[in-house]
């Protein structure tokens, strides 16, 4: 079975990124998964065991002093070494900030091509076929690479399931710490508060607020409903531009794309830009004063009403039913 490389990101605190599960699951559907990991010290036994649990048949452990001090370049060097060592059928990275830069540089270095923001993969007689969800899910496009190595960046949270567990063989390789042509990392600044709410990109339920909230103080209404439902918090661009909430919560074409089981839009009119980021949700609920708001065109359940009276009642009604 052909080898498929998966670049496993490790945080500067040494944690294996959440994207590892999906990457190894996708790799296992295409061949034998090889986890490529870059670190400044040899991998701990725990990490080897964890990657095996997630399906890595083999681990290419690149050890270099540049890990954590040089941006992305060590990952590209490691991947390039692993490509030489394993002659893979494909290379997978997360569609993360680091993952896509690594895939892009590797593509140029080894003469491959990038299939970006992939939501599903399969092999068609040995050819890697990638599926993409385009323009906010309005189109499903399948693509492949003709000649040359396919490099796929996998949308985080898109691949379900897990690869069968394996006992990973580890190949430890020491990489030279090169800095020329690379950017240097001076400092990591962790997110100040780690939210107890689910992560927006992968949450099963999302409650989003729009300009209809009227003020950042009123945005607490969105938080209250979200906490009642165990949901992540999102926002429309209008709410972000008005300063009600941070840009990282923005759902839409220019923000995060979400595909939850349930999406609740509060005071959101539903501009095309916003709909492009949420219309693949299984069920959409919209509450808005404006009867003609375009959000109602895609809502499975719409309420024309005042969010400030409907939402508190909804919170009570949900609490009453869950007791």
């Amino acid at each position, binding site marked *: 079975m052909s080898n498929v490389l998966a670049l496993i990101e490790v945080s500067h605190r040494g944690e294996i990124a959440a994207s590892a599960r999906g990457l190894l699951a996708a790799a296992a559907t295409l061949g034998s998964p090889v986890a490529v990991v870059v670190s400044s010290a040899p991998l701990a036994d725990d990490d080897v065991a964890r990657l095996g649990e997630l399906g890595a048949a083999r681990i290419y452990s690149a050890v270099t002093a540049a890990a954590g001090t040089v941006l992305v370049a060590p990952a590209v060097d490691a991947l390039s070494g692993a490509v030489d060592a394993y002659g893979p059928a494909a290379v997978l990275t997360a569609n993360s900030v680091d993952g896509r830069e690594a895939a892009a540089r590797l593509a140029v270095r080894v003469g491959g*091509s990038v299939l970006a923001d992939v939501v599903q993969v399969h092999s068609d007689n040995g050819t890697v076929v990638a599926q993409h969800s385009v323009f906010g899910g309005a189109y499903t496009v399948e693509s492949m690479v003709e000649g040359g190595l396919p490099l796929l960046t996998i949308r985080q949270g898109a691949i379900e399931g897990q690869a069968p567990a394996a006992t990973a063989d580890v190949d430890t390789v020491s990489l030279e710490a090169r800095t020329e042509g690379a950017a240097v990392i001076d400092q990591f*600044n962790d997110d100040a508060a780690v939210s107890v709410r689910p992560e927006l990109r992968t949450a099963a339920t999302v409650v989003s607020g729009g300009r209809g909230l009227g003020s950042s103080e009123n945005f607490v209404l969105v938080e209250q409903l979200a906490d009642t439902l165990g949901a992540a918090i999102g926002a429309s661009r209008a709410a972000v531009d008005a300063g009600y909430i941070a*840009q990282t919560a923005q759902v839409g*074409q220019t923000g995060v794309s979400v595909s939850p089981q349930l999406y609740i839009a509060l005071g959101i009119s539903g501009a095309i830009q916003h709909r*492009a980021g949420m219309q693949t949700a299984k069920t959409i609920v919209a509450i808005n004063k404006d*009867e003609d708001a375009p959000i109602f065109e895609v809502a499975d359940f719409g*309420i024309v009403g005042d969010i400030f009276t409907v939402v508190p009642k909804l919170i009570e009604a949900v609490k009453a039913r869950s007791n």
Partner: protein
Amino acid sequence: MKIVVLVKQVPDTAEERKLDLATGQLDREAADSVVDEINERALEAALRIKDANKGTEVVAMIMGPDDATQSLRKALSMGADSGVHIVDDSLDGADTGRTAATLAAALKATGFDVVMAGNESTDGRAGVVPAMVAEHLQLPLLGSLISAEIADDGVRGVRQGEGGTLNVRAGLPAIITVTERFPEARFPNFKGILTAKRKPVTRLSVAELGVPTGASRTVVVSTVERPPRAAGRKLIDDGTAADELAEFLVANRLV
């Protein structure tokens, strides 16, 4: 200091955008073309450096069909000093690899201290072209920045990572990409619009750049349009809508 800003002409995200189902390529007739907003933010960042230091030269570079000249003119009317338009029929539907190879060749020909771009376009959203260009030119990339300082001895900035931000830096020449955390672009003023017409625009073909004309290697196999979503129930709240919604959520096992 010479800054080249990469701009891309894209379908307006405020309109319904369409793909051609036969080719999988963008249907350019379906929506109006505009300068991608993220590139306008990159241009704004470059123009602010020029505002503070008159010795700065800002070049707007675009690859696209003939009508992409409009986007270049807008960049010039905002304040870019000159434009470079890479235009060639053989580039129709170019994939990220071809695009990056072509841009890299054009950048080499134009010369620069800093290249600025958006972190990802609103149409393709691949976010890989600047990193590919950086690899072609063997340059450092400071990607996905939320702020940047550009000086003669190098660039430094704050990068948005997955679990937090990173302070990063590199010497010149370098490539940086900006995120939506950068300030919105200025509007062209009357003087800018008038002077834009006199600013030089260089047109470059693939032959002039000496890049291979071969077809893109990523191929679209199939394109399927999702049926439009049908609207469901819509209630006018008479005081009971919240209860009905709660029932609906419970019945569908959503709470």
